[in-house]
């Protein structure tokens, strides 16, 4: 519950100053990857390494979700043989990784971004197009 308190403290005095959008990186095709370039608006708020580390971890997680390996093939073949009815019963590998990603983002927000007046939005809520970073006004944050 600690995170609630810090977020509520922030909520009570914060207003959105700006939003930064980290776009997708298509250099490797249509796999879900985000640009690791550090946006200039965040320079005063967070360490470049820290941010790039977050984005890199996210990229790795998405790569894991979309990996063409034996597990995905087995899942695909099984689905085909059962006329895809397994999709009604079982959670797919991708969905499992998405849950992992959601937890990771929550964790990152609580530990790193909220204390700095930032908020990462899970890309799935933006159709996997962007990572939305909300910058809050720096009024009475405990730094």
């Amino acid at each position, binding site marked *: 519950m600690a995170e609630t308190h810090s977020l509520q403290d922030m909520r009570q005095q914060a207003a959105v100053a700006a939003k930064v*959008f980290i776009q997708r990186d298509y250099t490797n095709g249509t796999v879900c990857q985000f640009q690791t370039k550090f946006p200039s608006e965040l320079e005063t708020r967070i360490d470049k390494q820290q941010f790039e580390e977050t984005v890199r971890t996210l990229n790795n997680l998405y790569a894991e979700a979309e990996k063409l390996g034996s597990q995905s093939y087995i899942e695909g073949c099984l689905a*085909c043989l059962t006329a895809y009815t397994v999709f009604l019963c079982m959670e797919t590998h991708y969905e499992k990784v998405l849950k992992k990603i959601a937890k990771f983002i929550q964790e990152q927000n609580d530990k790193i971004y909220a204390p700095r007046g930032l908020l990462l939005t899970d890309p799935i809520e933006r159709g996997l197009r962007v990572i939305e970073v909300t910058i809050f006004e720096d009024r009475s944050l405990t730094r």
Partner: protein
Amino acid sequence: MKNCEYQQIDPRTLVVSPSSAQKHTEKEAERPRRKWEVFPGKNRFFCGGRIMLARQSGVLPLTLGLIVFTCGLFFGFDCSFLVEHLTVFIPMIAAVLFLFVVISLLWTSFTDPGILPRATPDEAADIEKQINTSGSSTYRPPPRTKEILINQQVVKLKYCFTCKMFRPPRTSHCSLCDNCVERFDHHCPWVGNCVGKRNYRFFYSFIISLSFLTSFIFGCVITHITLRSQICKSLVQAIQESPARYPLYISHFIILIEMLSCLDTSLCTVVELVVCFFSIWSILGLSGFHTYLVASNLTTNEDIKGSWSSKRGADESGNPYSHSNIITNCCATLCGPMPPSLIDRRGFVPPDEAIPAASASEIELPLFTAKNDAHMCTQSTKDMLERMVHSSDFHGLCPPGTSKTAPLGLGVTSTPARSTQPSPSALCSQQHVHQPVALPCTTYSRSSKRDSPLSINPAFRLASPSPSLSRVSLILDDSPDTGFVPIP
């Protein structure tokens, strides 16, 4: 601490609260609209958003009807003969194929093909800023493209004016459905839906299994006719060879009866033959075409436009998405991981968007606020802060007692909302366990919040100079505990 305790109360109070749809978990609220209800594209939704179709379902009923009708005729008229003369496996194989075809068809038609949700206003503004300095909204600027490098090949990304974003590679905007669809293949009227990234494998299974089914039925029907004609011929021969056994007119009569009994079976058989014959050409052709597309990791859209074939003499190396070999391409397209639906049909529209719409019905408003409070601890932080950002939920930030009761008090003026009035006391009495002074909050807030529901920004109402309201604004800044201090 108090706040968290309060949150624990929430699910119970929500259950107690008398209004509508109480089908929720902590995450799902009650009456707030689900995203499928406000979906901007031209789609139709059924079963509470679980099933979706294009608005023009095309000839899907015809497709289904033809398949069911032809198979029905087959099972009804041909199977009995064939089981007798050949093997019992024939109807079994046909049944399996038929089931596979229908299930694949339904999956293709009812699945989200990979629709991209439209860009949020903030995103759109950011993109506009990046492209252009002069953002005039009164005219449509010239088409915007962005060039990127994919696997050392230059690919142009186009800007979609409807969805207000740069389309990812291989994404196309379907004008019939008014959506951008990822890995857009084509809009199939037979299936009544677009074929895209998420349902391409279902579509492929459908056409392959349909090819097998039509070929199988075609073969069986030909066999049936052949066998029957042989039997008729041998019967005629038998009668002719032993003329002494029967008088001539009786033998003719027997032949006639036999022909007639063949006839109604034959009529159905002929219908099946005709349907299968014409379908086979188109279905087999389509299957072959899509097998080629799968093997070279192309979409129909790209193939028709010749996106990659004009470069480097039409070989696979022109396609930056193609893997090194055919097997990998096939596996990637058909057996790859199943991407999730991005449009979140069953999710709830965030209340800051819903409140202006809901202001007309006071019953919904208390539920929104109740949901907001419940969500403080449990929902994603983004939603929480977004709500704060839009500041239409500032009363949600009130200490639980006032916020809970305030909007319920808003319903005083309208009759249906009156029924919710007992619930504030119920709520307060629940809260009595922890804060014995909630009841004064009820009376206080009911009188003061009368005019705020129609305000889009009740936060400003809260800050109005009325003395009772000013106390609320004071309370806002204090810790939640003090929210239950009785107001004299």
